[in-house]
């Protein structure tokens, strides 16, 4: 009480303004929590429905909870196999796209070659091209090469789809190394090997991690190509989810699979947010 009495008028005014802004922000936070939170909350609810105690109108939440749905999905569907397929394709696709992207990113990031803009656009093609067109007609190419319905074919397809992100992000981080640093290293007598080990690798590491995360999530989410090239021999999480949402829509199964699919992704989002500058996020996503 004393404090406010002694406080000059302008400070009181300032507090009021601050509080006002806080209210506005809070308002947005709440709207946003509803916007993002409710859909996720509903999915969680549906995955916990007790099959013996149906959830229907007019209840806003299920009358009782159980883990029965999760047990069912794991026991009676192909989800376990799909998880295994998804999580074995993704790391391979990440490594392959990293290896293929590294030299190209170096050139695009550090050399001022003629036609660079064209290369940068070409590299974006897998991201820009409508997925289903690529999927259908790539499947023709794969047919000719005997890659359809094979594991290798899926890895190659996923690699293709994650390369735009990988190349864009790594190109950005190569380009952001100041030439001075490299010159200084050379001036101090650093050879090629030392330059790579002590200059390039440490300086592109954040970009590399970001690129890998984007490549990984792209692979986990990839639907079009997997659906055309892989099914029915291979099922990944997205294609299995698609089948749950198709003609025989089973909401409870779909919610379990949805949660399985998005939880790792959201965790990755927070890793990206925490450890990486948002530049990488925008570099990989936008600005052609």
């Amino acid at each position, binding site marked *: 009480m004393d404090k406010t009495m002694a406080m000059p008028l302008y400070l009181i005014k300032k507090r009021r303004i*601050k509080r006002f802004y*806080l209210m506005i*922000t809070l308002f*947005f*936070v709440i709207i*946003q*929590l509803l916007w*993002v939170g*409710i*859909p*996720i909350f*509903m999915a969680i609810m549906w995955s916990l429905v007790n099959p013996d105690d149906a959830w*229907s*109108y*007019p209840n*806003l939440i299920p009358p009782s909870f159980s883990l029965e749905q999760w047990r069912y999905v794991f026991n009676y569907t192909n989800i376990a196999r799909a998880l295994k397929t998804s999580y074995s394709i993704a790391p391979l696709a990440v490594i392959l796209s990293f*290896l293929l992207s590294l*030299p*190209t990113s*170096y050139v695009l990031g550090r*050399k001022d*070659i*003629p036609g660079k803009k064209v290369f940068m656009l*070409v*590299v974006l093609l*897998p991201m*820009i*091209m*409508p*997925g*289903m*067109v690529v999927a*259908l*007609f*790539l499947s*023709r*190419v794969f*047919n000719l090469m005997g890659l359809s319905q094979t594991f290798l074919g899926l890895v190659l397809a996923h*690699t293709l789809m994650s*390369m*735009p992100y990988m190349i864009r992000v790594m190109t950005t981080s190569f380009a952001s190394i100041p030439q001075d640093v490299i010159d200084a290293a050379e001036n101090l007598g650093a050879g090629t090997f030392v330059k790579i080990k002590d200059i390039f690798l440490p300086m592109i590491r954040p970009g590399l991690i970001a690129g890998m995360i984007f490549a990984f*999530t792209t692979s*986990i*989410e990839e*639907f079009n190509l997997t659906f055309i090239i892989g099914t029915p021999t291979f099922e990944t999480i*997205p294609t299995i*989810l*698609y089948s749950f*949402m*198709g003609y025989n829509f089973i*909401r409870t199964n779909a*919610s379990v699979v*949805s949660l399985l699919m*998005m939880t790792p992704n*959201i965790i990755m*989002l927070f890793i990206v947010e925490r450890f990486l500058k948002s530049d990488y996020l925008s570099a990989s*996503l*936008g*600005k*052609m």
Partner: protein
Amino acid sequence: MKKKDKMTPFIILMLIPGVGFIVFFIGSSISITVLQSLGFFNMMGESGFTLGYWKSILSSREAIDSLLFSLRMGILSSVGTVLVAFPLALFFRKSGPAKGMLGSIIKVPLFIPALVAAFLILNLISYHGLINTTLMRLNIIDEPLRMLNDSFGWGVITIQIWKNLPFVLLILMSAISSIRDDTIDAARNLGAGYWSVLFRIYIPLAMPGILVAMILMFIKAFGDFPITSVAGPVYPSSVANRMQIMANLYQEWNQAAVLGVIIIITTFFVIWAYSRFAELVQGGA
């Protein structure tokens, strides 16, 4: 002046794994699409040049309906997302308390796969979904509203906006953050009120970003397969859907290829129009 680097064999060798890989697979699939749409390169049966497949697609009521539907989804999704994202981007221009957290929450859908997003929103807008249930309990409506699989495609648009809002927001935020505070102050100082500042400064200066966002959104929504097939109307289906059905169900690969070429051409045309328009907007600067 920085010196230009030459295309030495070494540089070409370095480009091959990345650019070469992409060019090979994307290039070959585009080529096959184009060739098959003209009757060449059939896997079985005879091949030979014909415009017959184009004629039959362009005279097919269903194909045209699909095309129009996908165009509508593309345009409305991109306009809708930008309309929602732009005020948010303005709000995020200045840092403030709790905005960091808010920024993280907003980005969540970015990392939620399209199909999952479709499922999440579907829970809300379906016939017996949360929104209908709530509205009915509040006695605002007597009959559930049809928001999913509706013939106009509102369900699809809602999902597209929900899923792509963060992506568009990021693009718009980076466009807006490059507008200097001084520029805004100068406009205010010269007598511009809030609306004038918005329409004469923010929007024109953010225009390149707005265009990129709209183009990318259009391409995504126009060529979309999974979201429309889950949340779209029974008829018409999206072009991508129709194409897939043609190819895999009816084995009409040539006609599917025609639709593929139409999708590719639309995509490239939009990008080309964007680059022309962007030049105009930015002038010779």
